[in-house]
């Protein structure tokens, strides 16, 4: 992967000037490359990684395994894109193995989630079965541990 992308993936807020110094490029070149990535859809957005568990949110998260019958035309993609359009769906993946789609979903209450599954998801033509798991606690997301690891004080001067 382009080192510029890797850096942005770990810190999307790095300034063009800082990135330029780190990569030994001009600021202009960095700006252009980022603009190109945004234009061609390689970069799809910038978000903060928030530890939701620290917030007093009315919010439930679930993961749903969905089995579907692929369609003659379009395979899994058409059904996936229908599911993906629901704003409560956060992430959606096509999987190998015993089920086909993995849906990451959030709602305000358990009932919201149950309603989504029974009314919206299960009724889509081609959906054969669903299996819903609720998330209880987030330890790590997007490569970031939610609890900061205690770091040992290093000596201030070492050889």
């Amino acid at each position: 992967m382009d080192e510029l992308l890797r850096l942005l993936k770990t810190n999307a807020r790095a300034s063009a000037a800082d990135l330029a110094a780190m990569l030994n490029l001009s600021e202009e070149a960095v700006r252009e490359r980022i603009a190109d990535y945004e234009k061609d859809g390689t970069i799809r957005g910038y978000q903060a990684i928030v530890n939701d568990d620290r917030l007093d949110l009315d919010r439930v998260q679930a993961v749903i395994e969905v089995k579907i019958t692929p369609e003659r035309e379009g395979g899994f993609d058409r059904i996936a894109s229908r599911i993906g359009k629901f704003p409560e769906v956060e992430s959606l993946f096509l999987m190998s193995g015993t089920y086909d789609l993995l849906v990451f979903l959030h709602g305000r209450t358990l009932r919201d989630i149950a309603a989504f599954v029974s009314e919206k998801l299960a009724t889509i033509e081609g959906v054969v079965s669903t299996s819903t798991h609720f998330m209880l606690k987030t330890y790590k997301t997007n490569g970031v541990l939610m609890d900061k690891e205690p770091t040992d004080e290093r000596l201030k001067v070492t050889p």
Partner: protein
Amino acid sequence: MNDSKLPHDALPVPSRFDIAKHLQAVPRSGIRDFFEIVGTRKDIISLSIGEPDFPTPWHIREASVYALDRGATAYTANLGLLELRREIARYTRESFGAEYDPGSEILVTVGVSEALDLALRAVLNPGDEVLYHEPCYVSYAPLVQFAHGVPVPVATSRDNGFRLDRAMLEAKLTPRTRVLMLNYPNNPTGAILAPDNTRDIAAFACEHNLLVVTDEIYSELTYDEPRCSIVAEPGMKERTIFLNGFSKAWAMTGFRVGYACAPPDLTEAMMKIHQYTMLCAPILSQKAAIEALRSGGNDLATMREAYRQRRNVLRKGLEDIGLPCVLPGGAFYAFPYIGDFGLSSQEFAVRFLEEEKVACVPGSAFGASGEGYLRCAYAADLDDIREALRRLAAFAGRL
């Protein structure tokens, strides 16, 4: 370093016993002095830390935890775990093109620190002279003196990129010269040797029948050119003690594990000292080291890239301030020249610390020829490096 917590005015308790004369002749470490000046201050940015700021990669720590869990709490063979020596043999073959026999040519030590001591004590007779480049790592001259040898520094400077060359070495050669010590990539300058330098130095060593002790602890950290080791030069393996370790490459300073590779007779001699003084390196650290060599390749690449970026930031910052600095090709140090401000490097470092709360080690801590320079370690957080640069600009602007 616990005693650094003593109040500064505490006088040493007078002793009935005299300290050994050759020890009295060894000055205190300049790093140690500076450590005491910095003391336990918390409000400073430190670019004085000669060790990675990354924690040891988790899978390596985990290997140690697992070993502890399984009851690995005993001595190992004096030479070190055979499994580790085999990994070291594979690694040195693949990385440096040097073939060592795990049974007789590899000794696992308590860091490169111990390995340096063993190498010198194994070969020096009283009065033997040891050539080494200066500025250099703080322990070289003292270790030579502990081994009753005579340290003969060869001054390098920014004019030659802190590299050694043949003419400089010839100038210091005497009939008593026995050993040449090398440390490239270098602490404190970040210098690396070019392939033609390496070839020249190797030829010099062969011609004058010198033993070369090469400390390649920073060998994984080169940023522009692939590393090259003197041990791979023709005729060098039989006259080289090759030292390497885990502290820098895998961020394992606290594990205290390194190794020496050398022909069997030299290994045996070092082993003789090691078995009586140290017995063996800690088993949990050896277990971690096995894991590092087996599956630590990605960690190296990630950390190397991070250091490269920090180096770029630091070097550009120094350039913008107008402080001349040889491009550091390896390790994680920049060594800018600060000699034009009319301050000694010690005065510069102390005032910089006091006025701007940034700690950088004065170059003079690394030998007389380090005077006029400042060691800035970039194994530090990028934001800290940027802030330190802003403060350095302000400080230099006032001088």
